[in-house]
C-alpha cells in the first residue's frame, strides 16, 4: 500500500494518511454513544430537550435523536434506535437456505445487491462451491451499479436537507437509469433476488449490454454536473466544511468502516485490501481524504461513484466477451437442474424435488464473510448445523456502527449542523435495526 504506515504507539499500526484532525479522543467518556450535558448546564433549565424523533424529515428513516439544546448549540445527544427492528435473523432461521436469500436485500434497502451478495457468499463459502466466472463478474457489475445507486440516494437526500433541493431531482434522474438496468436484468427495480447460491438465477438478457454501455458512457458527465453544482457553492461549503469532525483514531475505535473511515484519513477498502469476487483483476483507485468532516465524506462518495463507473465499464467489457459461458454452477445437490433435463434424467428429477421441497443442505460450520458495501464493511456470520435451514444468521451492519459516532461527531455544533452530520453518516435504518 502506498500510504505511509504510521507507527503511533504499539496499538496504532494502520495505514493513516495525513496528520490527526484533533489530538486526543472526543469519544464521550461515560458512555461512548451518549453525549452528556456538561455539569454547569445540567440543573439550570436553560437546556431544551428536543425529540429529533422517529418521524422527522431529515433523519433518513426512523432514527430518534434526543437532543439537549442550549439555544442553538447541541450540548447533549443520545440516539434511540429500534423503530424499524424487523426480526430478520429470527425469520431467516425458520426458512430454508433457498428462501432465506430473499430476506437480506430488505436489510439495507438502499444497497440491496451487496446485502444479498454477502449472504450468498457466506453460503458458498460453507458449501465451498465453485462459481463460474460469468456469475462472478455479473455480481461485481450489479454491486458497483448498486453502489452508485446508493451514493446517489445519499447525495440527493442530504443535499435536499441542506437546501440544495434541485440536487434531489438530478440524482433521482440518474437513479432511474440504474433501476432500469436492474429491471432489465432481473425483472424488478429493487430487491431483485438475482443471486443464487452457486451463481445467478437466470442468464443475462440479450439487450442488457448496450444499455449498460450507454449508462456507463454518460454517467461521468452527470457526475461532473453534480460537482459543478455543489463543489464551489458557498452555502454548501460553509455548511459542510469543518462540521462533524471524526479523527482516524476515533473512527477506528468506534468501528467505523467505508466512506466515513476513508474520509477520516484511513486508507482501507475491502475491495482492494481483502479482494472478493474478481476485484483484484479490476483496477480502480480508493479515494482517501484526511479532513474527517461532512465535506470530505461527501467528497469520498463522489469519487467512489466515479471509480465505480470505471469498474462497471471494465465489467461490461469483460462480460461482453463471455457470451455463451455457464452462469451457474452445475452441482446438482445445490443448483436446480435445467428444465429440459427433468424430462429425461431421473436423478435430476429427484434432485429437483429434494432441493425445492426440503432445500439443499449446507455442511455444518460457522463462517464470517465481509464485503465492502456502499456504507462500509457489511459482514454476514452464518452458523449451519448441516440441515436445510440456517441455524444462526447475523449481519454486521455498517450503519449500526456509523450511528454510534453521532455523539462523537456532534460536539459543539449547532442544531442545523446536526442535520448535515446525520446525513453524512448515511445510515439506513433497516440496516441499523435489522
Amino acid at each position, binding site marked *: *500500500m502506498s500510504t505511509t*504506515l504510521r507507527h503511533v504507539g*504499539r*496499538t*496504532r*499500526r*494502520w*495505514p493513516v494518511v495525513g496528520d490527526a484532525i484533533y489530538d486526543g479522543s472526543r*469519544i464521550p467518556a*461515560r*458512555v*461512548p*454513544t*451518549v453525549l452528556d450535558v456538561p455539569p454547569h448546564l445540567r440543573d439550570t433549565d436553560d437546556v431544551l430537550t428536543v425529540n429529533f424523533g422517529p418521524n422527522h424529515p431529515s433523519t433518513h428513516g426512523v432514527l430518534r435523536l434526543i437532543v439537549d439544546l442550549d439555544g442553538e448549540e447541541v450540548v447533549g445527544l443520545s440516539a434511540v*434506535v*429500534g423503530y424499524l*427492528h424487523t*426480526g430478520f*435473523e*429470527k425469520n431467516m432461521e*425458520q426458512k430454508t437456505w433457498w428462501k432465506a436469500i430473499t430476506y437480506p436485500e430488505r436489510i439495507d434497502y438502499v444497497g440491496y445487491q451487496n446485502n444479498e451478495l454477502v449472504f450468498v457468499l457466506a453460503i458458498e*463459502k*460453507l458449501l465451498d462451491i465453485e462459481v463460474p466466472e460469468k456469475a462472478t463478474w455479473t455480481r461485481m457489475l450489479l454491486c458497483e451499479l448498486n453502489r452508485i445507486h446508493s451514493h446517489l440516494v445519499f447525495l440527493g437526500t442530504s443535499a435536499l436537507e441542506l437546501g440544495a433541493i434541485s440536487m434531489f431531482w438530478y440524482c433521482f434522474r440518474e437513479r432511474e437509469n440504474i433501476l432500469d438496468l436492474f429491471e432489465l436484468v432481473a425483472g424488478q427495480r429493487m430487491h431483485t433476488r438475482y443471486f443464487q447460491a452457486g451463481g445467478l438465477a437466470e442468464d443475462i438478457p440479450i439487450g442488457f449490454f448496450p444499455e449498460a454501455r450507454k449508462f456507463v458512457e454518460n454517467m461521468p458527465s452527470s457526475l461532473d454536473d453534480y460537482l459543478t453544482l455543489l463543489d464551489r457553492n458557498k452555502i454548501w461549503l460553509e455548511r459542510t466544511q469543518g462540521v462533524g469532525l471524526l479523527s482516524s483514531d476515533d473512527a*477506528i*475505535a*468506534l*468501528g467505523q*468502516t467505508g466512506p466515513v473511515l476513508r474520509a477520516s484519513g*484511513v486508507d*482501507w477498502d*475491502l475491495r482492494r*485490501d*481483502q479482494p472478493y469476487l474478481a476485484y483484484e483483476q479490476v483496477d480502480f483507485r480508493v479515494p482517501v481524504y484526511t479532513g474527517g468532516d461532512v465535506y470530505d465524506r461527501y467528497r469520498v462518495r463522489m469519487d467512489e461513484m466515479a471509480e465505480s463507473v470505471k469498474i462497471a465499464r471494465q465489467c461490461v467489457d469483460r462480460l461482453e466477451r463471455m457470451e455463451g459461458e455457464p452462469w451457474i454452477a452445475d452441482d*446438482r*445437490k445445490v443448483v436446480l437442474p435445467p428444465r429440459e433435463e427433468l424430462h429425461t434424467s431421473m*436423478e435430476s428429477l429427484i434432485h429437483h424435488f429434494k432441493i425445492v421441497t426440503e432445500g439443499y443442505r449446507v*455442511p*455444518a*460450520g*460457522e*463462517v*464470517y464473510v*465481509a464485503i465492502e458495501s456502499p456504507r462500509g*464493511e457489511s*459482514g454476514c*456470520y452464518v*452458523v449451519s*448445523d*448441516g*440441515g*436445510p435451514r440456517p*441455524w*444462526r444468521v*447475523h449481519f*454486521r451492519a455498517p450503519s*449500526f*456502527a456509523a*450511528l*454510534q459516532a453521532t455523539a462523537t461527531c456532534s460536539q459543539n455544533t449547532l442544531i442545523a449542523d446536526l442535520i448535515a452530520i446525520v446525513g453524512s453518516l448515511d445510515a439506513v435504518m433497516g440496516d441499523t*435495526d435489522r
Partner: protein
Amino acid sequence: MSDFSKMPGYVSTKEEHGETTVVVDRAHVRDACAYARDELGFNVLMDVVATDYLGWAGKGVSGYIGTASGRDLNAPMTQGLQALPDVKPARFSVSYHLLALRQGAPRLRLQTWLEDGDPVDSVVPVWPAADWFEREQFDLMGIRFHGHPNLARLLMDDDWEGHPLRKDYPIGGEPVRFSPAE
C-alpha cells in the same frame, strides 16, 4: 497463523474455511481482547455475535447426509449416514470478530462459551464500538455484559419481556389464514 497460546484464558484454536477461531475462557475475555488488540494488532472490533445452541445436534435436527469425503452425485448409498454435527461445550457462544487494518487484512474470531445467566466482562473499555453491539446481544439474546456503562434494551421496546432471538422464544406473528372461513 501466529500462535495464540500466550493469550490469557486461551483454550483452543480452530482453523476452518480459512478462518481462525480462538476459544477463550469466559473469565478472561477482556484481557484476551486487550491482548489481541495490543500485541496482535487487531485494532477494529467488527462485530459481537451471540448464538444460542439449545437443541443443537438433537434427534430430528438432520445433519449433513453424505460421505465424509464430500458429495458425489453418482455414489449410491451415501444417504443414511446422518453425520450429527459436533456437540457444543455450552448453550451460548459469544463471538468477537476482529480485524487488523494491515496488509492481508488478517481476521480473528474470539469465542467464549457460557450458560444462560453467566455474565461476560464487557469489552467497551477496549473498543468503544462494543457499546451498541453488546447492548443488542443483551437485548435479543439475554447475555449479561458485566461492566457495560449503559446495558439496556436497544432494539426492542423498553418494557418487552423475553429475549426474541433465543431458540426457545416463539417466532410470534400470526398463523396464516388462507381463507376468511378459518
